[in-house]
């Protein structure tokens, strides 16, 4: 019986506390919770969320590098490409430092100055010294970047005809590439799309003496260490000759000849022995092997295993098969190149057939 009474008292006491609490709540003025304006509680929660968010940004950055750092392009395969990579590295370091610091300040301030009824904001409208400092710092940093960038750019885009570069025409059409070598005289014959006829697919002017020894091929071969001057033409719409491994790109414009020059500095064979490339090829082949298991189960043809090749890609929207317009590039030693080029027929020979 006593036990029963004790329990009853405890229960009644609990009910009384609950009721008193309720009365107090009702006595208070309308809760700000009812309004759609942020309450102190909201400020607090959202402030903490902001702090969490800046760590989320750092985390996703770190995760991307850790998980996908290996998909980035391998070492540059051209001389100027190394300069570009160097400039890229400097720029990236700058971006990361500025990004990490400013994101921290932004979100940390959002956290630490989250509002409440008891706090006061500081009336702080301007400070010319401070503004001057953060105007002049970007000015200096960007000036350095601009000068560095412009030197690199001028270096890449201007070249000496005296260097006697090998001249190669890249000819783009929906949806494939052709390359034309100048032949023994290293001079391309005149060409215009109006002259396209039969197997003279590039519209080369067959009456031009320079054109006689030109060689048209479907796979681009380049000798290592020799400067190559690409002359780009397009047959129908805009295309862009993008050679990511050589850090090279130039649009191909109908009615116009554009150009880009570089010196390959690593052969395809050597590139295949680069650590990054080995890892990449291995990973891609794992993916393809996994796909093949499915394909074979379905009774379809299995995918071929992949080995690394330099690529020339189309990088300007050009129509339905834009995604599938590429050509292999083989960089080889001078001797190998000479053997290969001597096996290709000249235009004069091909047209006679």
């Amino acid at each position, binding site marked *: 019986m006593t036990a029963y009474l004790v329990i009853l008292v405890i229960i009644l006491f609990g009910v009384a506390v609950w009721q008193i609490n309720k009365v107090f709540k009702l006595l208070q003025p309308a809760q700000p919770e009812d309004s759609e304006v942020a309450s102190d509680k909201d400020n607090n929660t959202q402030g903490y969320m902001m702090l969490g968010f800046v760590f989320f940004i750092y985390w996703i950055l770190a995760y991307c590098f850790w998980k996908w750092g290996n998909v980035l392009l391998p070492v540059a395969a051209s001389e100027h490409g190394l300069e570009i990579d160097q*400039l*890229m590295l400097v720029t990236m370091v700058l971006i990361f430092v500025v990004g990490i610091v400013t994101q921290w300040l932004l979100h940390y*301030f959002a956290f630490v*100055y989250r509002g409440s009824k008891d706090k006061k904001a500081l009336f702080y409208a301007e400070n010319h010294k401070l503004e001057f400092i953060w105007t002049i710092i970007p000015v200096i940093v960007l000036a350095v970047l601009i000068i560095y*960038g412009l030197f690199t750019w001028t270096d890449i*885009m201007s070249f000496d005809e005296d260097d006697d570069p090998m001249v190669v025409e890249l000819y783009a059409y929906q949806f494939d590439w052709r390359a034309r070598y100048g032949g023994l005289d290293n001079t391309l014959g005149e060409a215009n799309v109006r002259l396209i006829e039969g197997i003279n697919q590039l519209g080369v002017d067959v009456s031009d003496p320079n054109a006689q020894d030109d060689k048209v091929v479907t796979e681009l071969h380049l000798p290592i260490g020799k400067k190559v001057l690409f002359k780009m033409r397009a047959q129908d719409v805009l295309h862009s000759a993008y050679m990511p491994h050589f850090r090279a790109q130039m649009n191909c414009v109908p*009615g116009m000849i554009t150009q880009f020059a570089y010196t390959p500095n690593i052969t395809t064979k050597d590139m295949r022995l680069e650590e990054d490339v080995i890892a990449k090829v291995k990973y891609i082949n794992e993916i393809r092997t996994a796909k093949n298991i499915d394909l074979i189960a379905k009774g379809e043809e299995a995918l071929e295993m*992949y080995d690394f090749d330099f690529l020339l890609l189309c990088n300007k929207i050009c129509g*339905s098969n834009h995604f599938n317009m590429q050509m292999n590039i083989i960089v080889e030693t001078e001797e190998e190149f000479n053997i290969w080029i001597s096996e290709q027929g000249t235009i004069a020979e091909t047209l006679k057939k």
Partner: protein
Amino acid sequence: MSEHANDHDDHGHHHKETFVTKYIFSQDHKMISKQYLITGLFMGIIGIAMSLLFRLQLAWPDHQFTVYEIFLGKWAEDGVMDPNVYLSLVTIHGTIMVFFVLTAGLSGTFSNLLIPLQIGARDMASGFLNMVSYWLFFLSSVIMLLSLFVEAGPASAGWTIYPPLSALPQAIPGSGMGMTLWLVAMGIFVASSLLGSLNYIVTVINLRTKGMSMTRLPLTIWAFFVTAIIGVVSFPVLLSAVLMLIMDRSFGTSFFLSDIYIAGEVLHNQGGSPVLFEHLFWFLGHPEVYIVILPAMGLVSEIMATNARKPIFGYRAMIASILAIAFLSTIVWGHHMFITGMNPFLGSVFTFTTLLIAIPSAVKAFNWITTLWKGNLKMNPAMLFSIGFVSTFISGGLTGIVLGDSALDINVHDTMFVVAHFHLVMGISALYGLFAGVYHWFPKMFEGKMLNKKLGYIHFWITAIGAYGVFFPMHFIGMAGLPRRYYTNSNFPYFDDLLDINVVITVFALITAVGQLVFLYNFIHSMFFGKVGSQNPWNSTTLEWTAEVKHIHGNWDGPIPEVHRWPYDYSKMNKDNSNYVIAGQDFVPQHIPLQDNEEELSH
């Protein structure tokens, strides 16, 4: 200027409004603003839905999706997306988001709503032209949407519609009727935008209320004003490009075409240059991104000051940087064309001007961060989106240093790196600006009703995490060398290893898109059942919160308030530092005269 405004004091609310004049052919800027917003949001839904379709394709290129069949019909038989329709989706997504959502939907909505209300005017300078501007925009939207239903498919040459691809139906089916409609729609869009912009400029110059000097304008108005000027300078150039392209397509001229052999025959065109089109397009196209981002910057500046309970830091520097950005924006277009065959020397010049524009942008970012410093931050949803804006603007802006540098651009030009960059810096940032504006000024649009804050928080956090989840990894596939606008990246082996990144991006994109439904529900629900707040729910200083909560033509029932101070007197203390200027109230609205115990500052 005030005399003119006062002439209108008694005009307006005497007319008997019919349904048509009130809701359809309205000349009231508040209604037109809502029309812009709702049309913009509708187009936004379509634009985002399109992006989901092509994201699915990129993540699972071998999978057959019934959803393609439902939405794309004959262009996705058996659930396999046709490569041409993939390009159409990309093209129309870009067009809709850039022009219809972020230009008309953002600038159109808030310029219309805020210019008269914040400068103290009864309405726009010309209510009629304002109405014409909206209806041209509506017509343009309708034509753009109609182009989705033509036989050979909508325009599919990319949102930049470079000829010859956009000029020749032989090159891609979308360049037939679809492209004609695209061009017509954009021509009308330009007309709409010009009428709107001229109206904004005239209104800001002529209709400011007494005491509202240019240096007392809220930064929103400065941003809208300068945006309108850039629009007037650059949109006509797009119109000329559009007209010339129409000529090339339909009347046999050769402005942009030369030496073309396609589908087995040589075209007669000779002497034109596609590079000319690129110049004309980007002379608009680059200022266009500032047309998109400046209004967002203005909205964010205003919302940040209000919610930080602090003046915006460096008000004059903010105006100066808006002007500097506007000026520089018209001389940087060539950075889209470093490798188009343009003279490399020009490339150097454009690199120089492009990196210069980073300076005013950096100043703005630092000023926003300092505005937060020692504030008393009210974490309303609008404030969260404003902070999010600064975050994505910094992240996206920094990668711009890579793209603006001609030497570095060679290898990332037209790759997914570019896509990641501009989505963060102008896409997501401008959308954040739009959302911030909607959360903040919703009560002004819908007679005091407010958006639900809890749903607002959910909306923000899903969007914030999702946006970085989509666009951070995208930089990596770009730096791996993957070109943009590729229907699939697994057609040849080299990019096979990027597929799982594409899956991650798509998953984030789907989640983010679902998060937008929260906003949509909140918007529609609050429009009818939103809780009504006070007349000035955010304790803001600007004039729009002194106007009637109930919408009347003419905005203020009595005389227009006179302005006595700048718009950022938040937490200003009195002379002896014992209390706020108005005791117990941490803000002084613009129409309150200088108080006895107050120090006058040079604003």
